[in-house]
Every structure is written in C-alpha cells, then in structure tokens.
C-alpha cells in the first residue's frame, strides 16, 4: 500500500474520530460504542503508519490521536460511584488498616519505647527538663502553673483551633511523606514525639503537676497520639514500598504501598478537625471534671478504633 493510498482511504475516518472525540460528552450510547471500536482502528493505523511510513504527517497525526484518545477514553482509577465516601469508611479504610496492623503495631511499639526512654532519661538527667520545656516553663511549674494555660488565655479560640488543626494535619502529613525518604523522617518524628511525651510527663510529675497535665490531655491526647502512630505507620508503608524485598516488581510495590498509605491517611486526617475543637474548647477548661474529659477521650478513641479496625465481611 502506498502512502497516498493509505491516507486517502483512511483520512476520512481519522477526521470523523477526531470530531467524535472532541464531542465526547454529546455522544449517545451507540456513538460511544462506535468510538471505542474506532479507537482500536486508530491504534492499528498508528502502528502501521509508524512502521511503514515513519516520521510522516500521517504517522504524527495518528500518534497524537492515539495518545489523546488513550488519555481521554481510559482512566487509571475506577470511576467514582455514588456512596463512595461511605464505602470508603465502611470497607476500604478498615480493610486496609487490618491488612497493615502489623506495621501499625510496630509503629506503636517504637513510639512507646521512645516514650519510655524519655521518662527514664528525664528522671536520670536533672538538666533535661530545661532543655525540653525551657526555663520559663520550668519556672511556671515551680509556681504551680501549667504552660497550657497561656494557650487559651492569650489566643482567641478561633485562631487556636484553626492553628491546632492545621498544625496537626501538617505534622501528620509530614510524618507520612517522610517515609518516602526511606523512612528516615517518619522514624525521626515518631521517636521524637514519643521521647518528648515521656520526658514531659516525667518532668511534670517531678514538679507534682502530673495530674494537671493529665487533666489537659485526657480529652484529646489518646486519639491524637493514636493518629500520630497510624500516620507513622503509613510512612513506614512508603518505606516498605521502597526497600522491602518482594517477588513483586519494585514499581508495583511502590504503587501498592503508596495507595494503601493514602487510604490510611485519608481515613485518619478528618479526625484531626474535631480533635482540634476538643483541644481548644474542652481540654483547657478547669470547670469540666477530669472524668468527663477522660470519657470524651476514650469515646472518640473508641469510635476511631471501631471504624478503623472494623471486621468487614467479604463476598466469597
């Protein structure tokens, strides 16, 4: 077949395909079906032109048409369906969390070990309290004042809650994406948070202010720390995608772990918004009994765990 025969016999269909592709939204079912059939023909014409008439105008036109139509007609992800959000929290999120519970457990264990280390070091090293909390805070503790009091007395609650929410989300996101650096940043943030928590508790206990600190953190602390642990686990999944030995190709491992870690973060991040409201409007209040704060803290944590680790029935 000569070039001119090829062009003259097929050019009409190429032009028609271009028109149909441009008017994709207006096509009825038959039109869409025809488009898909023509798409395959375009691809075949492209391979023929590329092999027989490389570098020609027809080859370039078919190349551009092949790329454009592949992008327009095929989507990497499945199409959105109604109730996708409900199905995400009811099925996808808990399934993914349960599949990676070992990694979450490792993250939790590392956090606890770091916290324990912080407690031991704070008790053993007298000068550590000033390094962690600063001289002004330590002086306040000596006078029986918590540093948390200034958070709400000087800052409007609207600013406080938005600042806390955005800060927590930023920390969670940074902890997660730090896993892409072979887990280095994730582990640093996880261990540092654990160490600080243990050390701060140990220091406040030394100044007999442990109950005041517990009073402040009980409402929001359990869930917030849990999300730090889970976000770190999501980061460790990215790390696994990069370095874990597997019979799967590396690219496939990275995509799989990336998608799973995104699902985990997608299920966790929304909780940080009500958490910020609790931390702003409930935690600092001295008039609310500790038992109420503890009940709220355990309730939100229980709700999160019930959703996150719900056993999902799968069809056989």
């Amino acid at each position, binding site marked *: 077949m*000569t*070039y*001119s025969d090829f*062009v*003259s016999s097929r*050019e009409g269909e190429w032009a028609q395909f271009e028109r149909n592709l441009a008017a994709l939204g207006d096509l009825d079912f038959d039109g869409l079906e025809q488009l898909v059939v023509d*798409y395959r023909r375009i*691809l*075949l014409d*492209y*391979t023929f032109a590329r092999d*027989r*008439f*490389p*570098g*020609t*105008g*027809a080859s*370039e*036109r078919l*190349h*551009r048409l*092949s*790329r454009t139509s*592949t*992008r*327009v007609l*095929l*989507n*990497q*992800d499945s199409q959105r369906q109604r109730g996708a959000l409900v199905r995400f929290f009811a099925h996808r999120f808990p399934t993914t969390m349960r599949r990676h519970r070992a990694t979450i457990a490792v993250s939790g264990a590392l956090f606890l070990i770091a916290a324990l280390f912080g407690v031991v070091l704070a008790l053993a090293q007298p000068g550590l309290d000033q390094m962690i909390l600063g001289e002004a805070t330590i002086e306040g503790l000596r006078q029986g004042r918590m540093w948390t009091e200034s958070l709400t007395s000087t*800052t*409007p*609650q*609207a*600013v406080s*809650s*938005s*600042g806390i*929410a*955005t800060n927590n*989300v*930023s920390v969670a*996101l*940074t902890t*997660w*994406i*730090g896993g*892409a*650096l072979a887990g280095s*940043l994730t582990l640093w943030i996880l261990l540092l948070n654990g160490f600080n928590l243990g050390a701060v508790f140990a220091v406040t206990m030394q100044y007999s202010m442990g109950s005041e600190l517990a009073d402040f953190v009980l409402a929001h602390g359990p869930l917030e720390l849990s999300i730090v642990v889970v976000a770190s686990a999501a980061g460790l999944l*990215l790390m696994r*995608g990069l370095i874990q030995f597997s019979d799967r190709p590396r*690219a496939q491992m*990275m*995509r799989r772990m*990336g*998608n799973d870690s*995104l699902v985990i*973060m997608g299920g966790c991040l929304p909780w940080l918004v009500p958490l910020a409201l609790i931390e702003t409007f409930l935690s600092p209040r001295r008039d609310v009994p500790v038992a109420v704060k503890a009940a709220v803290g355990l309730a939100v944590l229980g709700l999160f765990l019930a959703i996150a680790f719900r056993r999902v029935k799968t069809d056989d």
Partner: protein
Amino acid sequence: MAPGTMEEASLDQSATPMTLAVDNIAIEQPVARLGTRALAAFLDYFFLGLIEVGAFILSGLGFAATGAADNVGPGWGLALWIVLAFILEWGYFTISEIVGRGKTVGKAIVGLRVVGESGTAAGIRSYVLRNMIRLPDILIGAFLLALDPKARRLGDRFAGTMVVRDRESAPAATLSYLPGGWGPREVRVAETFLRRADDMEISQRLVLARRLIAIGERRDPGFFDRARQVTSDPIEILRLGLGVP
C-alpha cells in the same frame, strides 16, 4: 489485556519511552525532562506566591472594610487565613491537577500534562499521592528524574504517573497524491517543508519549493502540470499537486 507499561531494556536515555495501550499496542510517550519540569514548577511556585500574597491582602482589606471580624468574633479573620494558607500550601498542586485534568498553571504554560504510567488519564488518588510526596522530591526528585527513562520523580513512582509534553501543535500536513517513485523519505521531506514553509524566509521558501517540484517531476514528468494551470506560486503548486489541504 489491561493497559500496562513496557520497561525500557536499554540504558539509552534518548530513546522515547513506550507505553502499552489496549491490545498491547505500544505508543511512544513524549515525556517531559528535567528542564521543562523545573520551569513549570518555578512558574507554579511563583503563581502560588502571588495567590498567597493577594489572598492575604484581600482578606485583610475585606475584614477591615466590612468589620466582619468584629461581628463574628475575635480572631476569625486570622483563623480563616490560617486555614486558607494551609489549603494553598498543601492543596494548590493537587487541586489544580484535579481541576485541570493533569495541568497546573505552570504546566499549562509550558505545555505539560500529568498522565497515568500507561498513558491513560490519571485518577484523583494519583494526583493526591504524587503531590503529597513533593517534600522528599525537593531533596532527591531532580536526581531521580534525570536518571529515569520516563523522567519520574519519587511522587510519580508511588502514584504511577508521569509528565508528558502535551502542547497542541500545528496539524501535520499529509500528502494525498505522490509522484511516482516517492517513498517515505520524500514524503517526510515534503510534509515537513509544507508545515514549516510559512515560518521560512521567502526566498529560501521558494528555492526549496522549486527543488521539490523538480525532484517530483524527475521520475514523474508533468506531475505538477495541472497545478501549474491554476497558480504560478511554487508553494501553491506543491500543495495542489500533492493534495495538501
């Protein structure tokens, strides 16, 4: 068979990466390399900076002019700005690529688009993942991009995406009639000339057109006679004779 990718066996970075469409048909993908990616990123960060400064000024003026902040409560203006700044900082690239179907402002200016690794449209999950993993790429992204045949940074690898050149170019000229003895090489030369003729200097344009006519009539005498009856312009003779619209 579902669309997939074809791993490059060669270390030749100049080879155009290929992806597999339906029926395992390989399509060349014009991936965007480090230079154009960096330019697009620079333009995006510049545009983001303008948005943040503009939003800050407008929100401040708005609250001052309307007194809304005093009406709704202390600190709400600043609270809203904190949330807006956070959304801009973390969400600009993601939201832009979702809305623009793979294009941000910078990418649109430079003529780039984010697509799936097999050339398909990328999904929302992919846009979110590749843009969340942007911070580590500040450290190592350029290095990875330069080494990868598909010019993917770390975020692209996790999300299964790549960035391709997607600028609309002038339609390629296609010849409908050929003088006897013309093969693909002659066709390429003629089509390329006709596509670029308008950008050439006029004397050079006429010389090349006359040369092509002579080459065509060397093996097929009189091929362009009918076109000569319509016009005397060598370029138009070439177009009419070769059947280029």
